[in-house]
């Protein structure tokens, strides 16, 4: 019986559907205290003093600390893509000398209940000398913290990549196409806000942090380093997680503060973020400006691409280091050949909330820029946008395709892909020529309707490795222990399916442990669409090891050879059906010698590269500037689909967020750096009314040669090209090529385009 490739129901849903979820706010401990963070009300300024006397006097307040009391804590370090020259730009857990964004933690209050904590926080007065904020990442860099870091400017790094002879490309170009586009500031907004409960164990003198997510092992080690805790004194425990999207689970000041408070006070301390805090304090993302210049020949083939772009990193460089800018530079060329390329990605600090990764980081943005460029080339040359894509796509024969540089410390080698084939499949699915004819007819009747395309290459399965331990007990139940994490995406089901495939046990017998640092010594977490690739492969290896042991022992017990045995429905049986034995009996036989176990470790120094296409059809109402999505198609090749239903769910969810970034979500600031979208009344999330039905063409045409399953990650393809496809569709609908150069496409911006005659 096969388990991989089937849309099996999620095994993790029962507690969630029964209202028994254990999210961060569900964790409680007798005698717990509550933490509240006092945040900066100004965007940029020098701290003259923090007055806490009145707050301290409030009954029920246990402690109030500023950086003066937590002076021994170092800044929060980079988890990945750190550079030495970025070090001075790291954020301390509480503001030191300066505040650099509205919402920056300045002090922390611990009290006996959350109401008193909030009352006390309101009484803390931050005396700040306000300074002129920097709010434009494309403006000339300014001083980061005048006098504290003399000479340190607000451009910590420029990421450069390139190959080929760009001068020669431009010298023989038929046409040079230039473009500037902007992607707005928005981010992943999980339904569950951040939070944690840190419990101090008096007997063992240890700490345990509940509410962990994404990268528990890394965060355990990082917090331990910051607090000076020896190995074994801090463990992290992940419960249910209400959405991750890249932003949840990174190490933030509050995670360290809650542990520091529990350690100092030797009492349980709980912190739950409210939504306003979340929109001010959790990582923002996107917010890039691209300036592209392409040398093209008469067919629209890009001979060379020169790109400059700016990432608005916000106030500090957080755990991701250069990740977003690095990925933008690395994936900007996408599925196209582009024989010469030169890119400079400027990381610029501003006085806004610090930024990090959000689902398809650097790709939502760069795909928008690149696909707008392709559309612009088509316009300039009077070609069809489809034709321009066709002539530029990397051919099947060129796979694996080495881009000639690195991203995230791994060489960019597209492992497999049938790019042209997927494009033709999408066109056939759309009945493209007929559809365009229909749209033309509707436009001639006065309707503003149009179709847009976005082609993209994703990346997934970042290493370095993952470890899996598996144990089958006497009842035949299997426990899989991994160091990856679940942010709700179906990890348990996918891993169980891979295990069940190899061991032929019913999926209900399998339990998956994740995100528990005391259960397994290493773990690399859930990000970069890596879990199914890395942990999935490790599960397969572990299951094969367990299977080999089981067959060998069973062969002895049944007086035959392993080759004469097979697994079926939790049993080992002889191929001729003469004898059988439950797997649990084999486990029982091994009980005294360590049980029936398997271990799998999968390491990889290369990422896998799934690819796909978004196609959007929209209708514009010129009177109200409303955009209605009439049709939305996502084609995505993930190499091999472990559970098609889960992947479709990932894609549809991704589209929802992509629509949000394309039309609705934007962190807007006023000229003083005050955030104007700091609640759900102004930061507009798409709802079921705004999200279209999504037609998913899930493909398995180009399995990855880099792992034993052939899988590529499926988490980010649904969002990647949403901005690009919708922008193209609106251009077509209003018949103003290249009109959309900025996301989100708000009714106000569309109004300016329609009235401005651009």
């Amino acid at each position, binding site marked *: 019986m096969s388990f991989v490739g089937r849309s099996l129901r999620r095994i993790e849903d029962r507690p969630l559907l029964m209202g028994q979820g254990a999210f961060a706010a569900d964790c409680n401990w007798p005698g717990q205290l509550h933490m509240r963070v006092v945040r900066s009300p100004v965007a940029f300024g020098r701290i003259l003093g923090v007055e806490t006397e009145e707050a301290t006097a409030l009954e029920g307040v246990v402690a109030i600390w500023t950086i003066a009391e937590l002076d021994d804590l170092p800044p929060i370090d980079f988890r990945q893509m750190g550079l030495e020259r970025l070090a001075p730009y790291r954020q301390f857990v509480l503001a030191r000398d300066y505040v650099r964004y509205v919402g920056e933690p300045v002090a922390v209050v611990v009290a006996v209940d*959350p*109401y008193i904590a*909030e*009352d006390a926080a*309101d009484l803390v007065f931050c005396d700040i000398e306000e300074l002129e904020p920097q709010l434009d990442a494309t403006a000339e860099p300014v001083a980061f913290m005048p006098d504290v870091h003399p000479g340190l400017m607000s451009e910590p790094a420029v990421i450069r990549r390139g190959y080929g002879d760009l001068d020669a490309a431009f010298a023989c170009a038929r046409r040079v196409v230039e473009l500037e586009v902007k992607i707005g500031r928005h981010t992943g907004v999980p339904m569950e806000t951040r939070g944690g409960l840190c419990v101090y164990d008096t007997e063992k003198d240890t700490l345990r942090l509940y509410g962990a997510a994404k990268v528990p092992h890394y965060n355990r080690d990082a917090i331990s380093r910051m607090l000076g805790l020896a190995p074994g004194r801090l463990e992290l425990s992940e419960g249910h997680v209400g959405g991750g999207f890249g932003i949840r689970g990174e190490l933030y000041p509050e995670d360290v503060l809650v542990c520091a408070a529990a350690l100092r006070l030797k009492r349980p301390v709980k912190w739950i973020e*409210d*939504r*306003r805090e979340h929109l001010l304090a959790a990582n923002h993302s996107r917010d890039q400006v691209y300036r592209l210049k392409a040398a093209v020949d008469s067919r629209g083939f890009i001979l060379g691409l020169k790109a400059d772009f700016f990432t608005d990193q916000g106030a500090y460089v957080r755990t991701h280091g250069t990740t977003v800018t690095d990925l933008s530079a690395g994936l900007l060329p996408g599925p196209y050949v582009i024989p010469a390329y030169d890119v400079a990605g400027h990381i610029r600090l501003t006085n806004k909330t610090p930024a990090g990764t959000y689902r398809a980081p650097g790709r939502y943005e760069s795909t928008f820029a690149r696909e707008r460029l392709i559309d612009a080339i088509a316009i300039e040359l009077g070609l069809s946008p489809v034709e321009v894509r066709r002539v530029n796509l990397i051919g099947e024969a060129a796979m694996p395709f080495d881009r000639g540089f690195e991203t995230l410390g791994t060489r960019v080698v597209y492992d497999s892909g049938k790019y042209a084939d997927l494009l033709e499949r999408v066109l056939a699915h759309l009945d493209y020529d007929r559809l365009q004819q229909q749209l033309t007819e509707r436009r001639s009747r006065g309707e503003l309707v149009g179709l847009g395309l976005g082609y993209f290459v994703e990346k997934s399965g970042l290493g370095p490795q993952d470890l899996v331990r598996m144990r089958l007990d006497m009842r035949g139940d299997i426990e899989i222990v991994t160091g990856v994490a679940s942010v709700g995406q179906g990890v348990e089901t996918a891993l169980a399916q891979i295990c069940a495939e190899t061991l032929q046990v019913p999926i209900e017998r399998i339990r998956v442990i994740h995100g528990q640092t005391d259960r397994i010594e290493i773990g690399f977490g859930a990000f970069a669409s890596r879990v199914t690739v890395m942990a999935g492969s490790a599960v397969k290896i572990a299951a094969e090891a367990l299977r080999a042991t089981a067959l060998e022992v069973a062969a002895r017990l049944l007086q035959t050879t392993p080759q004469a045995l097979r697994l079926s429905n939790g049993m080992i049986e002889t191929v001729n059906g003469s004898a059988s034995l439950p797997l649990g009996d084999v486990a029982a036989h091994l009980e005294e010698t360590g049980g029936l176990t398997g271990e799998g470790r999968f390491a990889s120094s290369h990422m896998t590269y799934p690819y796909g296409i978004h196609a959007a059809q929209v209708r514009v109402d010129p*009177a*109200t*500037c*409303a955009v209605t999505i009439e049709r939305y198609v996502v084609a995505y090749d993930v190499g091999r689909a472990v559970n098609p239903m889960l992947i479709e769910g990932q894609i549809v969810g991704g589209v929802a967020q992509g629509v949000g970034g394309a039309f*609705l979500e*934007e962190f*807007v600031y006023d000229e003083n750096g005050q955030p*104007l*979208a700091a*609640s759900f*009344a*102004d930061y*507009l999330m*798409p*709802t079921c*009314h*705004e999200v279209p039905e999504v037609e998913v063409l899930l493909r398995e045409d180009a399995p990855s040669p880099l792992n034993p399953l052939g899988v590529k990650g499926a988490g980010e393809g649904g969002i990647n090209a949403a901005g690009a496809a919708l922008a193209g569709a609106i251009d077509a609908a209003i018949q103003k090529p290249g009109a959309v150069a900025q996301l989100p496409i*708000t*009714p*106000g911006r569309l*109004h*300016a385009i329609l*009235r401005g005659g651009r």
Partner: protein
Amino acid sequence: MKAAAFDYLRPASLGEALALLATHKDDCKILAGGQSLVPAMNFRLARPAILIDINDLDELDHLRADAGQLKIGALTRHAAFHRPVVEGPLGTLLAKVVRHIAHYPIRQRGTFAGSLSHADPASEWCLVATTLRAEMVAKSARGERVIAASDFFHGTFTTALEPDEILAEIRLPIMTPDWRVGFYEFSRRAGDFALGMAVAAAKVEDGTIREARLGVGGVGDRAIRLGALEDQLVGTPASSDVIDSIDRIAREARGMIEPSGDIHASPEYRRDLIAASVKRALTEALA
């Protein structure tokens, strides 16, 4: 997002409630549906010392047609209007408008009178009350007074109500079957506050418009009745060439408002949106 401390009082009669209001005045707030007040308290934008919960006051829980008026008690929830509450154009119009107010769960709790007392400039009910010339019945320990809609709204979140008064009832004139009605609203998402909206109503006799009502909302600090355009409509034939009149009136409406800009819409966009809303509301009513 935890509210500051407050005292909670739940009077058992209107007399008791009015006495409490007379005592506490500006220190207290009335809690009916709480759909605007409670979020404001959680954000600590509102910090009333005392909440007076009126949900036990049966005297305020009514919705009836009486002497040519629809009388809406202070405890009438938005959801009460999901189906027409009176026969004829008024019930139809209210049922159409209510679908634009926030979302289903909010409509189950929030009240018609609460919306009016709160006086958000983008509130649908404020637009309806202004355009249809509602009467507001304010009660206090001092007695009762009736306030015309045109005198009731003073600006964003401010009304003619005194601190010791409660908006006990709203009276809307019931329209005869020869009235035709239309409503159009545009918001960024379903259920959001309107960026622009319009209500139109016209009494058509013998193919001619005899009376008209036209108002717009979501622009400025309160809903705006476009009296001059109402006058222009009167006497116009409600035939096929009404379309030309509608176009002209929509263009004029555009110039009669002075919208402000915010992060969701520029003044220019809002002006065009109002023209579009007026046109669509009138078209629905007349064409």
